[in-house]
C-alpha cells in the first residue's frame, strides 16, 4: 500500500467516522493500548492476590491502574493533558489524600488491628476488604499518589519553557499602554530623557539589574531566576518518590533478634552479625516518692559484622547511633546508597539473658531521597525571593512612564516602588534647583 493511499484512507476514515472527537485510528490505538494495559493489570492482580509468596506488587498495580484509567479516559474523549495540568485536580487530590490520611489515623492500622476491638465489629470484613485498615499501603491510596505525581510532573514540564524564557529573555519590548496599566505605575511629567537617565541611576542604586531594549525602553529587574525555585521545589517530590519506590522494592527492612554473645546471619545478605555484649542502664520510675519500677535510660549492643569469618566492622550501637556498613565504595554508593544499616530497635529478656532486637535495613535510593530533601529546602527558601520588574519609558510628550510588577509580596513591592519614585522625584527637583 502506497503512502498516498494510506493518507487518503485516513482522511476518509476521519471524515466518515468520529469516535468521541477522535479519528478512528487514534481511537483504535488508544483502545488497544488501554485494553492491553487492562489485561496486564488484571493478570498481574490475579497472580498477586492468588499467590502467598509474591513480592509486594501493589506499587506496580497502582501505577498500572492509573495508566489504564487515564488511557481509557483519553480514548473516550477526555482531555488527559488538560486534566493533568489543572490546579483543580491537584487541589482535589490534596484534599482527598488529606481526608484518607485522617481516616488512617482514626482507624487502627496494620498490626495494631488485632489488639483493637475492631476484629469483632460487624463492619470489620468490609472495611478490611476495602483497605481501611491498611490505608497508606492500599492500592488505591498509592494510585492517588501516582495521580498527584503525574499532575506534578506534567505541571513541571509545562512550566519549564516559560520559566527559562522569562529568565533568559527579559521582556523589554513593551508598549506604553502596558506600562501605564501595571499594578504599580507612576508618571513624571516633563522629565524627558534626562529623567530616564536619572531613573536608571536610581534603579541601579536600589539594586535592580538594567536591560535596555529597543525604542528606549528600560527594564529593571530583580530575581529573574527565582522562577526556578518553584520548579526545584516541586521536582524534589519526584526525586523523593523515586527514592521511596527504589527503597521499597529493592531494599529491605527486617527485624533481627540477636541474643547476647551469639551470632546470626543478616537477612538478604551473606553477612553475619555477632552481638559481643548487650548493655543497659536503668532509672527508677517513681510515683510520688515510691519506686514502682525501672525503665531503661540507655541501652546498647556491641556488634561486629563478618563476611566469611573476616571482620568487616565493629561498633557499639545505641538507639540513635546505628552501625552503617557499605560493601563497596564505588560511584554507585554515591548514586544509590548501598549501605546495610543495623539499628538498635529494642530488646527483651529471656531466662538465658538479654536478646537485642535490631532493625536491619538496606535503602537504595537514599541518595535520591536526600537530594530531594536538599532540593526541597533550597527551593522553598528561594521561593520567597520575588521576581520584580520595573519598566521605564519616555513617551512622545516627554512624560516619563514607570510601571512595575512583582509575582509575589505585592504590598511590599508597592512600598518599594513608591520609595523609588519618591527618590527619583527628589533628585529631579534638587537638580532643577
Amino acid at each position: 500500500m502506497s503512502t498516498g493511499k494510506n493518507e487518503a484512507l485516513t482522511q476518509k476514515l476521519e471524515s466518515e467516522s468520529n469516535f468521541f472527537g477522535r479519528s478512528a485510528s487514534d481511537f483504535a490505538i488508544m483502545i488497544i493500548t488501554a485494553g492491553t494495559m487492562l489485561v496486564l493489570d488484571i493478570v498481574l492482580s490475579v497472580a498477586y492476590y492468588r499467590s502467598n509468596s509474591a513480592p509486594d506488587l501493589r506499587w506496580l498495580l497502582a501505577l498500572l491502574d492509573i495508566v489504564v484509567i487515564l488511557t481509557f479516559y483519553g480514548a473516550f474523549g477526555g482531555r488527559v493533558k488538560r486534566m493533568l495540568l489543572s490546579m483543580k485536580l491537584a487541589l482535589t487530590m490534596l484534599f482527598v489524600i488529606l481526608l484518607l490520611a485522617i481516616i488512617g489515623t482514626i482507624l487502627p492500622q496494620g498490626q495494631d488491628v488485632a489488639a483493637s476491638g475492631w476484629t469483632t465489629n460487624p463492619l470489620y470484613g468490609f472495611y478490611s476488604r476495602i483497605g481501611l485498615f491498611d490505608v497508606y499501603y492500599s492500592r488505591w491510596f498509592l494510585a492517588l499518589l501516582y495521580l498527584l505525581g503525574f499532575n506534578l510532573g506534567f505541571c513541571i514540564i509545562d512550566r519549564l519553557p516559560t520559566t527559562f524564557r522569562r529568565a533568559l529573555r527579559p521582556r523589554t519590548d513593551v508598549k506604553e499602554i502596558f506600562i501605564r496599566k501595571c499594578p504599580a505605575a507612576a508618571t513624571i511629567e516633563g522629565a524627558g530623557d534626562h529623567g530616564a537617565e536619572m531613573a536608571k541611576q536610581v534603579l541601579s542604586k536600589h539594586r535592580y539589574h538594567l536591560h535596555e531594549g529597543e525604542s528606549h525602553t528600560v527594564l529593571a529587574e530583580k530575581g529573574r531566576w527565582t522562577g526556578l525555585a518553584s520548579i526545584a521545589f516541586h521536582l524534589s517530590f519526584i526525586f523523593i518518590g523515586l527514592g521511596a519506590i527504589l527503597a521499597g522494592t529493592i531494599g529491605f527492612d527486617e527485624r533481627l533478634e540477636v541474643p547476647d554473645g551469639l551470632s546470626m546471619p543478616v537477612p538478604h545478605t551473606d553477612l553475619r552479625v555477632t552481638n559481643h555484649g548487650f548493655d543497659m542502664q536503668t532509672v527508677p520510675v517513681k510515683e510520688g516518692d515510691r519506686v514502682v519500677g525501672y525503665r531503661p535510660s540507655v541501652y546498647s549492643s556491641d556488634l561486629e559484622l563478618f563476611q566469611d569469618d573476616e571482620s568487616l566492622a565493629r561498633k557499639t550501637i545505641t538507639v540513635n547511633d546505628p552501625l552503617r556498613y557499605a560493601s563497596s565504595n564505588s560511584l554507585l554508593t554515591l548514586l544509590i546508597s548501598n549501605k546495610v544499616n543495623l539499628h538498635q530497635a529494642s530488646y527483651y529478656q529471656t531466662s538465658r539473658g538479654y536478646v537485642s532486637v535490631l532493625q536491619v535495613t538496606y535503602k537504595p535510593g537514599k541518595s535520591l531521597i536526600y537530594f530531594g530533601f536538599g532540593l526541597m529546602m533550597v527551593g522553598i527558601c528561594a521561593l520567597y525571593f520575588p521576581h520584580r520588574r520595573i519598566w521605564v519609558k519616555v513617551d512622545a510628550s516627554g512624560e516619563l512612564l514607570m510601571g512595575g510588577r512583582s509575582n509575589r509580596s505585592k504590598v511590599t513591592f508597592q512600598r518599594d516602588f513608591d520609595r523609588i519614585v519618591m527618590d527619583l522625584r527628589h533628585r529631579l527637583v534638587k537638580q532643577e534647583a
Partner: protein
Amino acid sequence: MDINRLEELLFIAAVISYLVCSGFYIWYLISRNEKVVRLATLVLVLALVAHTLALGLRWYSSGHAPMSDLYESLSLFGWGIVLFFLIAQRFYPVQAAGALVVPTAFLITSIAGVFYQGPEPLVPALQSYWLWIHVTIAMLSYGLFALSFGAGFIYIVQEYLLKKHYKNVMYTFLILFAALGLVLGFWAGSWWAEPAKVMDQTTQIVSNVYSATDYLKILGGGIIGLAIGLVLGYFAGKGASKPGFAKRLPSLDVLDEVSYRGIAFGFPLLTIGIITGAIWADQAWGRWWGWDPKETWSLITWLFYGAYLHTRLTMGWRGRHSAIIAVIGLIVVLFTYLGVNLFLSGLHSYAAPT
C-alpha cells in the same frame, strides 16, 4: 497531692496565665488603655510567681538545678524571658513590646510542657541532637501559623466591622472563643483525668489507656472550657462591636498581608521540620516515614497549608477566603500539636511510662 503533681499544676497555671497575658498585651497594643497594661502586669507577676515555685519544687525533688532535660531548660528559658521583661518594664516604657515578648514566653513554655516528665532522663529514642533542631523548627512554624491565624481572625472581624455587621462580629468572637475554650478544656480535662500509661516493651511506644471516668472528666473539662469560652467570647464580641473599634485595628490590606506572611514563612519551616524529623527517624529506626499519627498529622497540616498557598498564589484567592483557611489551619495545627498526643498513640507520645 505529691510534689511533682503540684509542680505540674503550678507550671500549667503559669503557662495558661502567659496565654491570657499575651491577649492583654495585644489588647493594650490595640487600645492603648493604661488600665489593661496594669492588669496584664499583675497577671504576669502572679504567673511568674507560680512558675518560680514550679521550678523551685523541681529543683527540690530532683536534687539538681532544673536544666537537665528539655522540659526543664525550656521552662527556665521562658521564665528568664518573663523575668527580664518585667524588670525592663519596671524601668523603661516598653509595655508595647509585651505583645511580642509574652506570646513568645507562652510559646516556649508550652514547648516545655510537651516534654514534661518526672525529674528523670529522656527515653533512649529522644536522646539525640536532632531533638533540639526538629522541635525548635516545628515550634517556630506553629508560632507563625498562630500569627497568621490571629491576623486572619482580625481580618474577618475587621471586615464585618467596616460593613457594620455587628451581629456577625459577635458570632465570630463566640465561635472562636468557644472553640478555643473547648480545646483547652479537653486539654485540661485530660490532665485532670490522669489516664493509665502503658508502654509496649518492644517498641517503647507509650499509649494512654482511658477509663470511663477519665472520659467523663475530659468531657467535663471540655464543657467547662466551652462555657468559659462562650462567656469570654460574648464580652469580647460586645467590646469589639463598636463603630469606633475598626479604626484601632490595622487595615484589611495589612491584615491580609500579615496573615499570608505568617503562612509563607511558616510553611518552609514546617517543611524543614518534617524533613529533619524524617532524617532523625532514619537515624533512629532506619525509616524516614512510618505513618505514625504525629507524622501523618504533620503531613495533613502541610497539605492543608500547601493547598492554601496554591489557592492564593495560582488561583488568586485573597481576603476573606484566605483568612478563613488560615483560621481553620490553626485548628489543624493544634490537633497535630496537642490532639495527637492526647487522643492517638505513637512514638511522639512523650508521656512518661509507669
